[in-house]
């Protein structure tokens, strides 16, 4: 059976799923893989068309030689008394609108020598189109032919048949897209030893220590960094903070809300976008206030900050993102322990003493938080993501004991 017919379109156009499976995986971090990643990084950083997309530039930056070499070193150091090998075929299911995120996990799988099938979402965006054009161009070059033979990007794989086919070839699956998508893809049975890396519905939070905050420069910097974490993908990435825990002194909350809003307005390039935004925030705010779960918003403009009396699952489900922050005031850091359920992915922090934070996070009863990074780094990708260690999960560890 020619499996190419399973999809609306594939890239590279001459490659089919069957063809891909005839190629053996490549050695982990082989020179041709490193060359390809280097070429991709160069393209994304130098192509003038890419500059309009900050997240594409960020991706290009992350792929640069120095960073990848650091990862390779990490892989090698874990290979004492062991062989590290590819798992085989990795199938990636990409989310619809977080355009660049899935490329990070793809590069991790590629680096580990795997064959990859990337099932692209149906939604189109300029950034996604441009990334695909760049990839297609690189795949067509003879020096990257061995990469092009082992990496297939497919579009329109929605039929039962195509989903079965993808599930059956996978030695590992990377499932982006939240609870519903993950569960529906998992209904297609994969091999018994297939590893699923599931990116479920998560949300992220920031903790700000009001006792350590001063007006002026410091508050400005905080707002700038926080907006870096919340602006991309309209706050839709799971790692972008949607909840704001404010510890201690509350006197700067109002000024903080005002400055964050100013920061956001100042960075807008197309202010006419988001005509429905404030109404969505109003609905959320009134929905909360109606139930006595919140006070009147501190600001409801380009950004909305709503002081809430608690955080619960239903609230987080209603949270529509797009510059909306639920602010929960806490007396001490210890009160945070009750606010970190399993759904919390990333905790960013400002002005909180590291040792105290570490002690809190070590608490066995706390189910949430798979990443803890300083404010401004919420979206900085690392192969340790959402509680998974991708380079480990996407490779085989062959234990050696010659004794």
């Amino acid at each position, binding site marked *: 059976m020619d499996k190419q017919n399973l999809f609306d379109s594939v890239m590279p156009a001459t490659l089919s799923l069957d063809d891909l499976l005839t190629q053996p995986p490549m050695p982990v971090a082989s020179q041709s893989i490193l060359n390809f990643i280097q070429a991709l990084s160069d393209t994304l950083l130098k192509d003038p068309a890419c500059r309009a997309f900050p997240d594409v530039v960020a991706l290009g930056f992350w792929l640069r030689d120095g960073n990848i070499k650091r990862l390779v070193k990490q892989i090698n150091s874990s290979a004492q008394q062991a062989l590290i090998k590819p798992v085989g075929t990795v199938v990636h299911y990409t989310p619809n609108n977080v355009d660049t995120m899935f490329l990070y996990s793809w590069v991790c799988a590629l680096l580990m020598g795997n064959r990859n099938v990337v099932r692209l*979402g149906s*939604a189109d965006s300029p950034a996604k189109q441009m990334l695909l054009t760049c990839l297609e161009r690189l795949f067509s070059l003879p020096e990257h032919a061995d990469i092009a033979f082992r990496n297939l990007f497919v579009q329109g794989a929605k039929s039962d048949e195509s989903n079965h086919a993808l599930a059956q070839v996978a030695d590992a699956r990377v499932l982006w*897209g939240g609870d519903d998508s993950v569960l529906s893809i998992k209904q297609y049975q994969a091999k018994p030893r297939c590893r699923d890396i599931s990116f479920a519905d998560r949300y992220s939070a920031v903790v700000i220590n009001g006792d350590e905050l001063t007006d002026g420069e410091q508050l400005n910097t905080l707002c700038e960094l926080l907006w870096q974490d919340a602006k991309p993908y309209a706050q839709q990435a799971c790692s972008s903070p949607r909840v704001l825990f404010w510890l201690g002194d509350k006197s700067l909350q109002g000024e903080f809300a005002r400055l964050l809003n100013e920061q956001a307005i100042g960075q807008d390039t197309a202010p006419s976008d988001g005509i429905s935004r404030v109404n969505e925030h109003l*609905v959320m705010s*009134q929905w909360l206030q109606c139930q006595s779960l919140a006070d009147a918003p501190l600001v409801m403009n380009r950004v909305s900050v709503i002081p809430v009396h608690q955080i619960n699952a239903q609230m987080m489900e209603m949270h529509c993102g797009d510059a909306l922050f639920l602010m929960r005031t806490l007396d001490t850091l210890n009160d945070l322990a009750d606010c970190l359920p399993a759904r919390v992915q990333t905790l960013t922090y400002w002005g909180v003493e590291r040792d105290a934070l570490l002690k809190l996070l070590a608490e066995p009863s706390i189910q949430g938080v798979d990443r803890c990074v300083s404010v401004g780094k919420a979206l900085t990708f690392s192969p340790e993501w959402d509680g998974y260690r991708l380079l480990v999960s996407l490779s085989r560890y062959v234990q050696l004991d010659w004794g």
Partner: protein
Amino acid sequence: MTMAEDYQNALSALLDEPVYGLSQSEKLTRLQAVFALLHEHHNQHCTAYHNMFRQPVTCNTPLDQLPFIAVRLFKLFALKSVPDNDVVKCLMSSGTSGQVPSRIFLDSLTSRMQSKALVKILQQFLGKQRLPMLIIDSPDVKGADGKLNARAAGIQGLAMFGRDHTYALNPDMTLNTEAISAFSQRYHDQPVLVFGFTFMVWQHFVSALKASGMTLHLPHAHLFHSGGWKKLEAQKVSNETFKQQLLAVAGISAVTNFYGMAEQVGSVFMECEEGMLHAPVTAEVIVRNPYDLSLAKTGESGLIQVLSALPYSYPGYSILTEDRGTIHGVGDCKCGRSGTYFTVQGRLPKVEVRGCSDTSSSPGLGA
């Protein structure tokens, strides 16, 4: 006197005024007094309202500083300001499939006042005589469970202006050609009332007549329609086209659109000869900047806020809609009616669900 009596007196007095005759300053003074009473009433009898709007409202509070409730809240909560025993009717908005409809709870006072206000407004266009009425809908639109969907409620509201109510459509939304022809033959030489929802009129009446090759002759008919242009805009059908086609297939030249919603039945905004929607004496309209909800200037498009003196049994006297509109002026419309006049530009775009929790869709699952 109790607050309820104060309110009823003030509202009744307002309803005795000409629909489009009060000076704007007089109207605002009267409305402010009513809204101060309504705020107090909802504050005392609707916990949700009390939780949301703690600010004081007096008869000096300008309309643009009154609290406003997002229209979607009526979908999310059962909001009412009277005891359950007093509820005589529950209106449901026309939620498209899968959407939760709004639920609007009416007591006998609000229900009565809605009818009274509507009668007053429509009489300005129809006169006092009951006319033979052709309803562009199916008789099945009426639910049996006492809960009224918006279409049935709208039809019921206008039905009191008609007699010999004739439904133009079969239960499957095809033309009931027999009923229509009989109606048309019987009443071709006298005034008749035709009512339907904008999209129904276009899709199941105008287009259906055209497709069937049938033409009607109702030169003295006056069509009233409402419900919004969203679906027609998608088909690139303008108000002009709509009117031209009605004339062509049914001989109807008098066509009046009006803007209203299930959340504020009664105080509807009628379109005048100049194509402008007019606020009646019981209602006012405000347009807000959609980016920060500040007041928009005359001539600027924004989000429509509707205010009505009628909602007593539910906290809906001041609602921020999800419709976009523009106020064009106050009291100086060429049609001669006083009050604020405006146009509607359609709905706010739906917010896409995006991001991590939205993969390339459900992978099929054979569904």
